[in-house]
């Protein structure tokens, strides 16, 4: 009697029906996981590429406006190695009297692979120089405005349990401001592994004034199934799946005086002849 009118299911029926329904469900979950994984990888790679392009643009833009910068080939020519843990560098390069505008002579570490003695986790100076930040004002007129500028690279010094968001990655910093004051952080680019001077690309005058240089910038993206730790350290072999992306960027020091003409200052010969560039203005890129 009890079982006669029973319209429910037996245990066997429940187990079988659940098992059958699990088949498409599991298949669907696998597809979903695959899609999510691919989306994460794509977003990670795009983020890395954005940072790589930003780093290239920062280096090119700011070095391109340097007005008096020389190549230096010693570890201490930029004022004493790594800056750690200071938040803001100081512009302490000597002002020389051979330039009418009394612009301090900037310096750039131009050794092959430079800086060759990275201090991991600290900010290592790539260059410290004066640039012209003068631009058009609202009346479409231009005048010079000189600012102290520093480029620093902080290599990664540890691994990270979080493998996909650039934690503990190498970072390029740009500092800028009044040369008499500590420079302020202006922009940065992350996800980097290394920045180095490409051997044989350096172009300087006989007086070591810079004409052009090419940097190789390396960024790193971590791929799917990254069970291991992210590791952006130079020369490391991460346990997680990864892919290094390289970009070579040639920088022409278009505003740099070359010191080859009879006159100095603004009339000095420059890489494009006696042409001088005011600041480049981009419509939607705040870091410029």
């Amino acid at each position: 009697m009890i079982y006669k009118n029973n319209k429910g299911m037996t245990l066997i029926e429940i187990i079988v029906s659940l098992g059958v329904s699990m088949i498409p469900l599991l298949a669907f979950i696998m597809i979903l996981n695959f899609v999510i994984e691919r989306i994460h990888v794509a977003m990670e790679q795009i983020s890395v590429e954005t940072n790589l392009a930003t780093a290239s643009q920062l280096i090119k833009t700011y070095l391109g406006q340097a007005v008096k910068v020389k190549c230096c080939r010693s570890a201490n020519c930029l004022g004493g190695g790594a800056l750690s843990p200071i938040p803001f560098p100081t512009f302490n390069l000597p002002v020389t009297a051979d330039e009418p505008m009394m612009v301090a002579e900037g310096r750039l570490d131009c050794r092959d692979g430079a800086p060759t003695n990275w201090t991991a986790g600290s900010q290592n100076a790539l260059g410290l120089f004066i640039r012209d930040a003068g631009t058009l004002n609202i009346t479409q007129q231009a005048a010079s405005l000189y600012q102290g500028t520093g480029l620093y690279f902080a290599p990664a010094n540890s691994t990270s349990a979080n493998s996909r968001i650039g934690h503990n990655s190498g970072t390029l910093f740009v500092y800028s401001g009044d040369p008499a004051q500590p420079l302020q952080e202006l922009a940065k680019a992350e996800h980097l592994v290394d920045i180095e001077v490409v051997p044989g690309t350096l172009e300087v005058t006989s007086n070591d004034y810079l004409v052009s240089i090419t940097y190789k910038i390396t960024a790193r993206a971590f791929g799917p199934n990254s069970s291991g730790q992210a590791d952006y350290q130079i020369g490391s072999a991460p346990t997680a799946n990864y892919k290094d992306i390289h970009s070579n960027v040639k920088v022409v020091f278009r505003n740099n005086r070359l010191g080859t003409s009879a006159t100095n200052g603004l009339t000095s010969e420059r890489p494009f002849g006696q042409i001088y560039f005011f600041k480049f203005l981009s419509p939607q890129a705040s870091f410029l």
Partner: protein
Amino acid sequence: MILKNSKGSTSIMFVLLGTILMGTLIAVSYKNISMRSKQIRKIKETSNVQEVFELAAKTIRTARDTDVAADGMNWPPADPQCANTCTTLSGGVAPRMCFSNVLSAASPYCFYDSLLNVKNASNHRIFIPLGDDFILDEKPFVETKSLIAALNFFDSFIELPKANATGSINLRTDTAGQAPSACNPNAPAPGCLTCGGPNPYGGGPVTCVTLSACPTSYPGCEDITSTTTKKAFTQTIFLLPGGYTR
């Protein structure tokens, strides 16, 4: 009873929910990826424009004996050397400048103003509206290859943004100057540079040229007939006076 009548519906419900979830995820991610891709493109385009400006500056520097429309508007110039081969384009767009003796007289580079829809032009060029007299260098021309490379680059640059691209690169003179607070335009100290101001080293006023570019991938740049530079890349360069001719 509930279980009996809902047999199979559980898995269907899971599938439906999963589909909605995955669809939402893909849509959000696509939007995010698309936005970041545009960001990369703009950064790369910024770099391209900078190179264009450098090449344009170099081009201006190395050209000589250029024919310029006498008043910046009327063509041919008073002393034409390449005027016959730089003709008015369809649409009535007249040349403003040509480099006649840089390349052969038979195939000069013709520069037109920016008020031209590139889509209708048979040949893409760099467009240079000249509002005022244009001062060029008299130095012997030694970089013909650079000029050709520059102009080719301009062509490809204009075509880059999309298949039916419209775009322009404008050059215009800007001779009105204003001194910064630290510089007196009437008695400029060495190191002070202002467009249109006296040259502290002698040789005439400081001449500036403002270059602007407005790739069509940037909002507001779709209409190349617009003369506004609010949303365009701009850069002012100064050309050292002294030793220049027209």
